[in-house]
């Protein structure tokens, strides 16, 4: 009797092993870290998977000396899910999106209405996460992924994880996830990260007015990520350069980018530019008067500036008059640049990427009233006033610019 009882007791653990339908062996997984989407013919898409090789970069490296850090394969299929299955005709391991954090879409696909169908239908897959980043590449996504060979990062997912942090630091690109994309489909503009590996070099005096590929760069990884792709109603309609993106992000009430370094013309010697760090002091105040027609939008951006370098060597720090002059000059530049972007969105894009619609919605009691009001239409004619509330906080750790003693002939 005791033996039978013991036997039953031993059998209990086996019940926990039941239900192996969804088992997944770690060894048999292929973790896709980057997904590329391109338009193909006949409503098909080219889906590119960059699959990480977890052995590379780990202590287990010795086992797989000659294996590359990742494998990139492309398949043509009607949608992402079927491409995933199709990939297993080639890839020995089961494709898993558990670590997928980046989706790269070619501009050609993004500009077609097919894009929304592909993306909208893919989120049904429980493995697709709404926190995935969206990047639009100027060239084909498959070329982008193949050309991207970061020298400092062996493992591809690390590259995107670190780059994402840098994007937040610099504000050259927006923070674009699928969740934000799905939030902004009813006429608001959605900004996606814009990138390329091709060169279209240009030279500007203003160091953040570039679009990807235009940044003068010698050697290094060819990927340039700057500026944003503008989406309206699920379709790409234009681009913003790095500077315009930064300003757009500052105009949002709650910004994820709190500070960036930029240069502005020196008010006394306009040939030179002064570098400074702009820090957002608090939330941008947006007040919208919907009672007026056209509506009135008043925006106050509270910023403080830390002066970093003054190449003209003019002593702005110790002279209060010059400080005032500098402050006024920077404010004026900021405001005129911002107004240009506002004009551009009103006339060219006919919508706003500043998430002002949430402020406009506040003024209404019901959804019906808001929808009848049609904020996107009204915005195109709205009178917008942007004011920068700027304080110069510090002038760095030098009190005066270093002087070279002038020699008067010998």
């Amino acid at each position: 009797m005791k033996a039978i009882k013991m036997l039953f007791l031993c059998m209990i653990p086996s019940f926990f092993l039941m239900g192996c339908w969804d088992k997944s062996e770690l060894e048999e997984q292929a973790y896709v870290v980057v997904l590329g989407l391109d338009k193909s013919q006949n409503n098909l898409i080219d889906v590119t998977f960059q699959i990480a090789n977890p052995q590379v970069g780990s202590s287990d490296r010795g086992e797989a000396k000659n294996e590359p850090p990742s494998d990139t394969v492309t398949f043509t299929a009607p949608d992402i899910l079927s491409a995933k299955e199709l990939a297993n005709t080639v890839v020995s391991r089961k494709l898993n999106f558990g670590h997928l954090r980046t989706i790269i879409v070619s501009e050609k696909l993004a500009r077609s209405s097919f894009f929304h169908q592909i993306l909208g239908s893919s989120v049904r897959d429980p493995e697709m996460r709404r926190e995935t980043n969206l990047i639009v590449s100027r060239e084909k996504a498959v070329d982008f992924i193949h050309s991207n060979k970061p020298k400092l990062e062996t493992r591809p997912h690390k590259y995107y994880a670190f780059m994402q942090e840098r994007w937040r630091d610099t504000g050259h690109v927006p923070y674009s996830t699928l969740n934000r994309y799905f939030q902004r489909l009813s006429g608001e503009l959605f900004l996606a990260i814009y990138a390329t590996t091709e060169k279209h070099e240009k030279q500007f005096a203003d160091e953040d007015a570039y679009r990807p590929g235009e940044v003068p760069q010698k050697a290094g990884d060819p990927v340039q990520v700057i500026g944003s792709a503008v989406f309206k109603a699920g379709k790409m309609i234009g681009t913003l350069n790095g500077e315009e993106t930064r300003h757009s992000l500052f105009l949002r009430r709650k910004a994820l980018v709190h500070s960036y370094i930029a240069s502005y013309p020196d008010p006394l010697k306009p040939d030179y530019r002064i570098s400074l760090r702009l820090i957002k002091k608090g939330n941008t105040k947006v007040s919208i008067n919907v009672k007026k027609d056209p509506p009135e939008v008043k925006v106050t951006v509270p910023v403080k500036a830390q002066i970093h370098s003054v190449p003209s060597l003019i002593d702005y720090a110790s002279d209060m008059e010059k400080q005032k002059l500098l402050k006024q000059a920077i404010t004026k530049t900021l405001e005129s640049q911002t107004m240009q972007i506002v004009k551009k969105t009103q006339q060219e894009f006919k919508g706003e990427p500043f998430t002002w619609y949430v402020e406009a919605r506040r003024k209404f009691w019901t959804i019906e009233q808001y929808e009848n009001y049609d904020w996107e239409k009204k915005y195109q004619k709205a009178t917008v006033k942007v004011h920068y509330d700027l304080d110069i906080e510090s002038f760095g750790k030098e009190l005066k610019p270093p002087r070279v003693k002038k020699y008067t002939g010998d």
Partner: protein
Amino acid sequence: MIKISDGKIGTREFASVVLLTIGIKFTDTTPSILFALGKNAAWMMPLFTFMIVLIPFLVLLSLVKKHNQGLMELVYRLMGNNFGFITGLVLFLILLGATAINCRSYVDIVSTMFYQRTPVPYLLLMLMGVSYFVANRGFETIGRSAWIIIPYVIPIALLLFLFVRDAIDWLHLFPIAGPGITKLIKESATHSSIFGEMIYLSVFFPFVTNYKTFRKASFIGFAISFVEISLFTALYVMVFDYPAVEHLAYPFQDLTRAAAIGETIAHVEAIFLGFWVISAVIHFAIYIYITSFLFARTLRLNEFEPLLMPITGLVVLLGLIPTNLIAANQYREMLLKISSGVLLLVPFLLWILDRWKGRRQVESD
């Protein structure tokens, strides 16, 4: 002090039971039903429903106090044998249907979000099998297990706010009235049986130590439940924004997937899945228990615990009828409309009968 168990439960246990019966509803398909009706102002609906259901509940409470009896005893005492039987049967059928549809929707969540290849019948059997195991131990065990897990489940659910705080924008709640206050109140009233368990839970009166405990525990449970449901419904809108939130079938599970602790620890949904499954087991144990109890009392059987097994089996079979979630939701919508009327009416009917009988008794004396 170790008290000798008398099969009855106290305030905290009964409050936990209430919380696990009603308070858990923000994790299932209830919010999606609310979003379809109340748009971005769906978070107000639980509060309106609470106020609407509170009136019949208070009426019922006064009767419970007066006669010191639970719902089913009151039904028979005041309605007589024939009408009592019919009312009991209707209450039983509504609850049986609700249990079957609800457990199917829980299984659908697990099946679509976590275990796609596991057959639905198997998941259904597992969930209800474990629930039966808990229910079979008796109401005292249900109450005590509920009290054991509540102190973990609620803080962990609230942690979600912390994990998604970057994505929250409270301005998404505007326009504040959504489809309009009158529409909100109307829809809350017609769908009040989403939270109809408030009425059903009073069948448990005989299992609670005394009237005072019952009243206190009910109010604590209801208050926390409705605030919780309202809070989370608002959270879904704040994170996903309207109209995107309307397209989500399972907002809670989608939110747990979006949750992250800092930059590196990203996939934390497993924590929530674990605690959610434990809560779901107790949730359905309570349902099976009430259903069996109602059935036994309707047929005036004294022993009802042997009924737990066949009722569980019946629930599993009924749960297999809808082919998918959308079909299940259609059944649910139908059931909600029918049951809302019944559940709101029964307490008033009992109250009127009580008055009438009381007067006749005074006259005959």
